[in-house]
């Protein structure tokens, strides 16, 4: 009893400290928001890409207000819905306050809501993993995950990640994009197909790349949240059945229990639900877009200057990605070929990962987001912030992550070096584009290593579980 009380106490302490840290992060952002001129984050290439920059959005809004097409002059490349949502906020000024205060507050709100959603999703994930571990009789493993909430950790990692803070203070629209992606994952985890469908449709509409998340979302809805491989449960049941034939009834009971809690079969109903809702939402979004761009340009122009702009990599201004330099150098007649090659890069990885990680859809989503934010045409630190936050869900699974120490310091070093190289190139004139591009490549390398290592750590964890669940009965006997 006492241990339980202590646990409760520590839980309460944990939640209170969690909220303290959340408020601290909000206050920190507010402080930074009040120094916008000095920090100048919104003009940094790491933060504001042609797709996410709020300056471009304000320009697009202005064009729209003067009854021109918002996409005129290749300035704005975002969704028309964002224009009507955020656009009015860019114009409104409050006396004596920073210019973009309302926008900043909106992004701050988006960040906090995303963190809360990450926390809630993390808690569901943790609960389901505890359940599945218990059903595998690995009580000790499940115990440790009860002590620290991975949802809290993930939420705090997301809130306190410098990348998130910079993206929020730097007024790029990536907090909103991240929010809808997280919303879809949350909806799928808590089995709310309409919500998941809404998040997915909006994410795809806003930044195209979340489209690949349809696979993990369907898996999530069909199979339930992350669990050890299904084979394990089957093996477990078989071995149990084989070992104590005398106590048939209890075994059957357990089987029933297992089946009720962990659906072994793929359940199609929520998936169909999801697809249905997705089609409804997409029609809805398209109709809204159609209404807002009807007067000027129409849908074709919208698609051309949003998705077309993303896919054809028209803007070659430097960013932290690897495409701009390449397409600045490549010969014009090879351009289409390499465009296909680079975009295929993302698509090629989808299927193998989906097959290998189909029992862990949330992790699969993490891997997809990480890969696409590395290879997308206009990446920014806001995209990295998203998958680094999601990484927090898997603290226990990734405990044996190799090179975590070096990955961490490497990331810190590269992300500090990149603005310095930019300064050397643009302001001092003693460096050149290669300097900056080298840091971009190093950053991409670190991301690749992170993805590879975390996937292998997850697979190792599954192997460890299998080993434990096979050896456990023997231990019990001896």
């Amino acid at each position: 009893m006492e241990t339980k009380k202590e646990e409760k106490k520590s839980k309460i302490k944990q939640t209170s400290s969690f909220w303290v840290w959340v408020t601290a992060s909000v206050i920190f952002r507010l402080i930074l928001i009040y120094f916008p001129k000095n920090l100048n984050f919104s003009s940094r290439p790491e933060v504001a890409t042609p797709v996410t920059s709020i300056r471009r959005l304000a320009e697009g809004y202005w064009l729209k207000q003067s009854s021109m097409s918002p996409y005129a002059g290749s300035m704005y490349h975002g969704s028309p819905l964002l224009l009507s949502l955020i656009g009015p906020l860019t114009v409104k000024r409050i006396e004596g306050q920073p210019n973009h205060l309302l926008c900043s507050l909106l992004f701050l709100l988006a960040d906090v809501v995303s963190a809360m959603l990450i926390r809630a999703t993390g808690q569901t994930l943790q609960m389901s993993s505890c359940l599945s571990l218990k059903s595998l009789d690995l009580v000790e493993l499940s115990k440790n995950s009860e002590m620290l909430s991975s949802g809290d950790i993930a939420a705090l990692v997301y809130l306190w990640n410098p990348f998130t803070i910079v993206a929020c203070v730097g007024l790029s629209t990536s907090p909103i994009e991240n929010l809808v992606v997280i919303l879809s994952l949350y909806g799928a985890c808590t089995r709310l197909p309409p919500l998941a469908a809404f998040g997915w449709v909006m994410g795809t509409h806003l930044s195209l790349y979340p489209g690949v998340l349809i696979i993990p979302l369907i898996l999530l809805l069909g199979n339930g949240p992350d669990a050890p491989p299904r084979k394990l449960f089957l093996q477990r049941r078989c071995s149990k059945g084989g070992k104590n034939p005398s106590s048939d009834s209890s075994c059957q009971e357990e089987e029933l229990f297992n089946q009720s809690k962990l659906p072994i079969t793929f359940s199609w109903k929520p998936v169909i639900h999801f697809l249905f809702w997705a089609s409804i939402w997409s029609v809805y979004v398209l109709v809204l877009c159609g209404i807002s761009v009807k007067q000027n340009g129409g849908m074709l122009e919208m698609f051309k200057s949003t998705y077309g702009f993303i896919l054809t990599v028209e803007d070659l201004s430097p960013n932290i990605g690897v495409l701009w330099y390449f397409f600045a150098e490549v010969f014009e007649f090879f351009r289409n070929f390499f465009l296909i090659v680079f975009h295929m890069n993302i698509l090629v990885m989808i299927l193998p990962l989906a097959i290998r990680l189909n029992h862990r859809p949330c992790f699969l989503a993490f891997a997809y987001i990480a890969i696409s934010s590395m290879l997308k045409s206009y990446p920014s630190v806001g995209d990295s912030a998203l998958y680094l936050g999601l990484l927090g869900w898997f603290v226990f699974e990734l405990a044996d992550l190799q090179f975590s120490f070096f990955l961490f310091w490497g990331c810190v070093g590269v992300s500090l070096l990149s603005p310095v190289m930019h300064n050397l190139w643009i302001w001092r004139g003693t460096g050149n584009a290669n300097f900056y591009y080298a840091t971009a490549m190093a950053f991409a390398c670190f991301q690749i290593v992170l993805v590879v290592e975390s996937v292998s750590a997850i697979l190792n964890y599954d192997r460890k579980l299998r080993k434990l669940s096979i050896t456990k009965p023997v231990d019990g006997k001896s």
Partner: protein
Amino acid sequence: MAETEVSKKRKRPIVRLAVLLLSHSVLVSVICCTAGVFGLLLLPVLAKNTYISENALMPGSASSMLSNQEVSEANKLIKELNNLHSNPLGATTESHGIVAKYMSNLGAQVNNHKFHPQLNQFHPLHFFSGPDSGVMQENSTRSLYGINTVGIIRAPRGDGKEAIVLVTPYNAVKGGVRETLSLGIAYSVFSLLTRVTWLAKDIIWLVADSQYGEYAPVAAWLRDYHTPAFSNLDSLNTETCHVGNNNFESKISYGIRRSGTMAAALVLGVAYGNENEDTLGIYAEASNGQMPNLDLINIVHYLAVHRQGLRVKVEQFHWLLNSKWVKSLGEVFESLGKMVKTLNPDWKLGISAADYVEGAATLASSLYHQALGVPTGPHGAFRDYQVDAITLEFSLRISFDRLDRRNDFLLHGGRLIEGVIRSVNNLLEKFHQSFFLYLLTSPSKFVSVGVYMIAFALLVAPLPVVAASLYAKTLDLNPTSEKDKSATSNELGSVLQSWKWLNSVKTVFVVHFWGATVSLLPYFISQIPDSDPTTNFSVWILLSILSLEILRWILVSPSSHIYGLPQGEWATLKSATISSFFIGLGLMSVINFATAEIGALLMVPMALMAHPLKLDVRGQSLRSILRMICNLVLGVITFPPATFFVFKGVIEGFSGINAGDFWNWVESLWAWNSATYLYIGMVHLPCWVLCVQILLHPC
């Protein structure tokens, strides 16, 4: 066992190499550090002769056109200005008028530029933004102002999109013969250039009003030149500036007149020489150790030595010239060079001991001035706009009073400037062929970035190796401790174990955050009215200690109490410290190489050697006692103020040392926005604090 052996054999060679390096980290760090220091000492030997890299420059290919006619005109101007100085009342306004009159008589476009001297202030957030994002300061005192006079010759063969700038600092109130002579040189060249046909770039002659320092007027003019001013500002300027009662002066506009982008800038100065020859001093260091393109120095050197017979010198540390150990080191290198020559006559490594001493003194001064990050003259202002600029300081053997000597001097100086301008005039693009990153070991010898980076890389190479080996060791430690604990089945422990390094990372971050606050504190302390440097310094130290304690209390204590960490903690802390220090040094080597080099020389041994004193006391072996002594000595020396006082004492003698000196030094650093200040506050000091924490670790 057999299995592990097989797996070991199967490992890739690169992995085996890494394992080998990690297991011999002590040996590796000793070898690398010694090699790094040796490489630094070897730099004067490895210096190459300069050469003119850009073919278009063609210095000295045309014969000089400057004749005695221009010199005599210049003499007229000098005489008139000197007469003005005899009655100092009203000299200020009139001297501008005289210079402007001479300029416009030559057919140049003339305007005055009024500026308000800005006190150098601390902008904590402006270090890495571009020059134009510096917000205009509102609080500069409006009553103080200076007036620059600017003359522009439009090039007959140019399109007005490029310009070459000549700057002569001139103090109308206190200016002596020295400054009028530099005006004379510039005027003689200017008057020639109004008549030549080959000019393809506009010539801008800026007579900078140096009553508030030489840097401020040039910086102010450059800022106004590069920021587009809109109508209201112009009208404001013309309104308030009708000070001159002279008829001519009121005709001169105060709006800024522009030409194109600047290809190069030359700042002229004249000094009283106390040497036996006419010499030309070259000053090139701009803010944060940035140097102009080496080609600019090369053409000046080439023309001065081979055409005008001047002796060119760059700054040296004179106290190093007489130091015995440098001399003996030079002798060692000389004999080594001879030995190498016997092995292979093609290797030309040998330089004489005297040359080595000269080179070492110049190199040390070059390193020092770059590391300080404070520009050595008005040319520093140009570098902020990516314009290559140097200061040329002529110094004469005898006094300027004799007219024939003076004419000779004007002729030589004028011809040199004319030659340089003619070379730069040939350029089709901006300087880009030659080096931007180099250290000078003499006016005609340089060490390029590719060479000096090797010494630095060797010096810092042990840092990642030691960090990795320490981290690997703690990982090796953990499984055993886990096995001991397995009875209690503390799996939470194992999860925390694998993320344990995050705790030391947190400590490192807290300390670096503290470093940032410490670097911000002087901004607030300097707001205290009427305080002398010593009290400021002590307030700073007190506040720093206070903030460290507060941060420790808020952030560090709770977690370390809850999960009391085992003995290996100091090792992870050390590896995190070293990693962060390595990153800091790497960044600094990109921003300002010299600072990183000096910082690495000071701090790398300390960071590598840090080891808890308690363990050393318990160790009782000779090695641990030696390590303890080294640690204690290094711990005292590498504390930034201590380092400063030790260096000052060695160079200037320990007698006149005052605690406020450090404050003054730091103030000069932040006033010039030197990145060295940030380095000290956010890399060096936190690393020192962390090392001390490791030393005092209760293990």
